[in-house]
């Protein structure tokens, strides 16, 4: 499991790689929250799931938690490149009502 942070213009990108569960989530959370807290000018956090090989509801908790934290900093979030299964799990939480979530293309 790893998280790579990249910054571009007003965006912070977090590329998550590997499995997201209750065991791996804390480290992912810390890396992303650190990036959020130091990027004063960034307006949007993009969580990129293209390299996520597995997630359970802990992945939803991770996204909801980042949404709450980003909101307190006046930032928005978006989730990109979810595979069909992970998109379905995300949708169960109703998160698409408060943040944009996108499926992987093709």
């Amino acid at each position, binding site marked *: 499991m790893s998280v790579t942070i990249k910054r571009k213009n007003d965006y912070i990108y977090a590329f998550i790689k590997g499995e997201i569960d209750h*065991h791996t989530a804390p480290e992912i959370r810390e890396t992303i929250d650190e990036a959020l807290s130091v990027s004063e000018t960034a307006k949007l956090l993009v969580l990129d799931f293209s390299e996520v090989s597995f997630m*359970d509801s802990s992945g939803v*908790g991770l996204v909801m938690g980042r949404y709450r934290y980003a909101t307190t900093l006046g930032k928005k979030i978006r989730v990109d490149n979810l595979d069909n299964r992970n998109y379905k799990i995300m949708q169960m939480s109703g998160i698409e009502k408060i943040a944009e979530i996108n499926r992987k293309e093709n």
Partner: protein
Amino acid sequence: MKKINQMKMILDSYSVNEGFSRVAVSAFASQLDMTVDELGDIKTIVSEAVTNCIVHAYKEKIGKIYITCTVFENGILRVSVRDRGCGIPDVKKAREPLYTSVGGDRSGLGFSVMESFSDKLSVRSKVGVGTTVTMEKRISGKKYE
């Protein structure tokens, strides 16, 4: 239903075992010639059930998690995950979507996910005694012989 094959394992409730438990169960279940999707469903269900034992049943302490996987003649896989933890006072309420008894980064979706990825899910629980979650899934692939 006639039993064909069975596997049991006992794990300590360390979070590092979450990954191991879902891989072990899916490796055993793969004798049923599952599709990639079905295998993914099984992994997700096991991950949810085992995580609940770690996070809720045993909370701050370490206890044993008992997993039984049974393959039946008609291509049904049954997985049960049992703990001797705190138990659930109101199972009906616990199974409601988005219900969680803890704050933080839990979303209250575990049971909803388990229900949606299995064909049948039963939860038996007694406060102070423990909880057993049993799921069944019909596997579409080649029948076991």
